[in-house]
């Protein structure tokens, strides 16, 4: 079976940059054309590998931001100023360049199109990326699964996908958007203006009886606060799925 894809085998694929769009001052979305891409499920990620001329390699994991779309995928990358990989991806890559990636990987943190009950998405900063893939997949499928997104960002300008989220929620009674802006709020702001705490979760989270699953993604302390808060509020730990960034060295 020379050349045939082996089930489960992960191969590094050449991915060509076809589009780059700024999202916020610190984040960019990079669209790749990946010949041989097997398709993915919303919430999965890819490993990205960069190789320097002297052979030195650096690998990082990035969540896929886009819904399933043939051989094309999008990653949204936050630039970490002292990072090794993210400044290259956000500042140096140009359309036509290629990088290596493998995936999709991870079946644990993925959108379930058959979820029974309300799905609760909780994102801190760029932790919204895999949740956006879920919101996009949900919209693409015309899914009616009640879904609430709680999105914590520092300021209104740091909200990634702001316009698209507004548009998605406006046309869909089943998708609720709740923002909290932790550092500064625009004049007349009616959303929350603090870090996610137990009281905020008690107001925003679906009741344990109706929660299908919660997907929580963000920096490790954020995920820790949300996940332990949900358990304190009576949610079953197995229904709270987490994806922590940690300090990855970006």
């Amino acid at each position, binding site marked *: 079976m020379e050349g045939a894809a082996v*089930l489960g085998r992960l191969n590094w694929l050449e991915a060509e940059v076809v589009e780059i769009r700024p999202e916020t001052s610190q984040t960019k979305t990079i669209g790749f054309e990946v010949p041989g891409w097997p398709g993915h499920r919303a919430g999965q990620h890819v490993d990205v590998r960069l190789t320097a001329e002297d052979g030195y390699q650096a690998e990082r994991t990035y969540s896929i931001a886009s819904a399933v779309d043939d051989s094309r995928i999008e990653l949204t990358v936050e630039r970490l100023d002292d990072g090794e990989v993210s400044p290259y991806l956000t500042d140096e890559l140009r359309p036509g360049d290629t990088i290596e990636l493998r995936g999709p*990987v*991870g*079946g644990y943190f993925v959108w379930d199109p058959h979820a029974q009950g309300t799905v609760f998405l909780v994102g801190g900063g760029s932790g919204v990326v895999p949740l956006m893939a879920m919101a996009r997949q949900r919209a693409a499928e015309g899914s009616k699964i009640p879904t609430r997104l709680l999105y914590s960002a520092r300021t209104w300008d740091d909200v990634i996908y702001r316009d698209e989220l507004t548009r998605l929620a406006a046309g869909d009674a089943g998708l609720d958007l709740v923002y909290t802006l932790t550092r500064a709020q625009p004049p007349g702001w009616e959303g929350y203006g603090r870090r996610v705490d137990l009281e905020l979760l008690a107001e925003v989270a679906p009741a344990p009886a109706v929660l299908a699953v919660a997907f929580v993604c963000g920096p*490790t302390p954020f995920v820790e606060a949300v996940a332990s808060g949900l358990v304190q509020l009576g949610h079953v730990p*197995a229904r709270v*799925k987490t994806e922590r960034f940690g*300090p990855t060295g970006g």
Partner: protein
Amino acid sequence: MDALMLDGNAAAGLLQEIFGSEMTTAVGTCHACGTAGEVGGVFLYRGAGLVFRCPQCDAVLMKIVVGGTRRWIDLRGLRALELDLELGT
């Protein structure tokens, strides 16, 4: 809580490379306390190698060290690992 902590899910690529199957939905049983849970949801610490710990009792489940093309895997903290090949794509 440790700010360096990640989830088993973050090692999905490496695990799939080693085991040849999607492993974050595999269910591992902790040798120390007997708790069973999905590999994607266990605690993961990244240092010179990867250390997977039980979210219930904090015992070490699994250690993986990557060196060039070699992979060194210590599984002594796992009593069992159960895969569903239907999910392993």
